[in-house]
């Protein structure tokens, strides 16, 4: 026992921690044991306990292994590769089986999927209806219908728990776009965008600025201004 004082021992556990930890109390009375340690009342998990973290620090008091210094020296001797700074940022999402990307700055919020209330006399166009986003009624538009994305998978096979509503504000009008999955934000270099393949159909090509690869998918980076001006036009035509 190191440093433990028996005369003042409000908490034996804390006293024991003053010296080197030679116990594995977390396996006996802690969360990996029978959970009888009184300290758990206040700290709720052994990882918040000083005995546990001290035992972890003791692992760092080990001797270095033979190649340790050489490996790290080689690592730090290399010149730092100055990566060119990414100058583009996009949110990548999926509609049907197509991965698409829109510039991050037009996004305001991504929420869970909500019920979309259809509007009377609203045909199978891009206008889906309205959705209640925290008290505000927003117009929901189907980006897939504008882009003529074919429903490759039957709707019931799409995993509903991945569905999200993207709230975008491209030009002063907030819109909600239901999508089937959101991958996240991806930073990239604008010059790294790959050109759209020539086999892409014309309507798709006029909306696509290029392709970026993320998450082992190739996502079509859409021209936000063209997409949303066409969306606005098709909404006003109604």
């Amino acid at each position: 026992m190191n440093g433990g004082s028996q005369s003042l021992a409000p908490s034996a556990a804390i006293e024991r921690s003053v010296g080197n930890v030679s116990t594995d109390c977390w396996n006996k009375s802690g969360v990996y044991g029978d959970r009888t340690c009184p300290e758990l009342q206040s700290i709720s998990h052994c990882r918040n306990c000083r005995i546990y973290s001290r035992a972890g620090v003791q692992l760092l008091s080990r001797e270095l292994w033979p190649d340790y210094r050489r490996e790290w020296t080689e690592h730090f001797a290399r010149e730092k590769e100055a990566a060119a700074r990414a100058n583009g940022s996009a949110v990548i999402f999926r509609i049907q089986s197509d991965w698409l990307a829109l510039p991050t700055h037009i996004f305001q919020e991504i929420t869970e999927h909500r019920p979309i209330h259809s509007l009377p006399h609203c045909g199978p166009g891009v206008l889906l209806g309205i959705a209640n986003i925290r008290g505000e009624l927003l117009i929901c538009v189907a980006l897939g219908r504008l882009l003529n994305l074919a429903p490759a998978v039957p709707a019931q096979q799409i995993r509903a728990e991945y569905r999200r509503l993207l709230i975008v504000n491209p030009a002063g009008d907030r819109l909600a776009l239901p999508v089937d999955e959101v991958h996240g934000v991806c930073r990239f270099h604008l010059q790294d965008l790959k050109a759209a393949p020539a086999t892409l159909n014309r309507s798709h090509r006029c909306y696509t600025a290029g392709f970026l690869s993320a998450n082992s998918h190739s996502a079509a980076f859409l021209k936000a201004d063209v997409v949303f001006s066409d969306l606005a036009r098709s909404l006003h035509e109604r």
Partner: protein
Amino acid sequence: MLFLTFKTGQQRYAISASRVIEVLPLLQMTPVPAPQGTVAYFNYKGRPTIAVDLCALTCGRPAHAHLGTRIILVKHPAAPAPDHLLGLIAEQVTDVVRLKSTDLADPGVHLQEAPHLGPVFMDEEGAVQCIYEDRLLLGPARRLPPPAADYTRRPFGHFA
């Protein structure tokens, strides 16, 4: 305020995290003929960078070659160029603590030979002394050779 804590021997110290550029593992060192083997060079991204063993400087023995012994990289206090770095080798460089300015207390003693010692704070295990790494050269490291004015840019005529 965030502080990086470390040990030299039994003594516990802290350095303001805002002064720390990077914490490196213990690397291979090329010793320099300096008092008590306190100084060595290591290769940091292709540049020779000087490292001072704080244990050798204050305890008279080199730092243990343990996993927790690391190099705290700071700006060289006497450097003319801002990219001129200094490594401080210390033991148990394993923790950071967040402190309020009210946690720091003046120790009440100011040693002329240790002007680098700053305020003290207490934790469960005792007192931890903050150090001013930019005053090391006035105190324990004063016998270190001062850095050349611009050693990276000097033409090294007779080596060319």
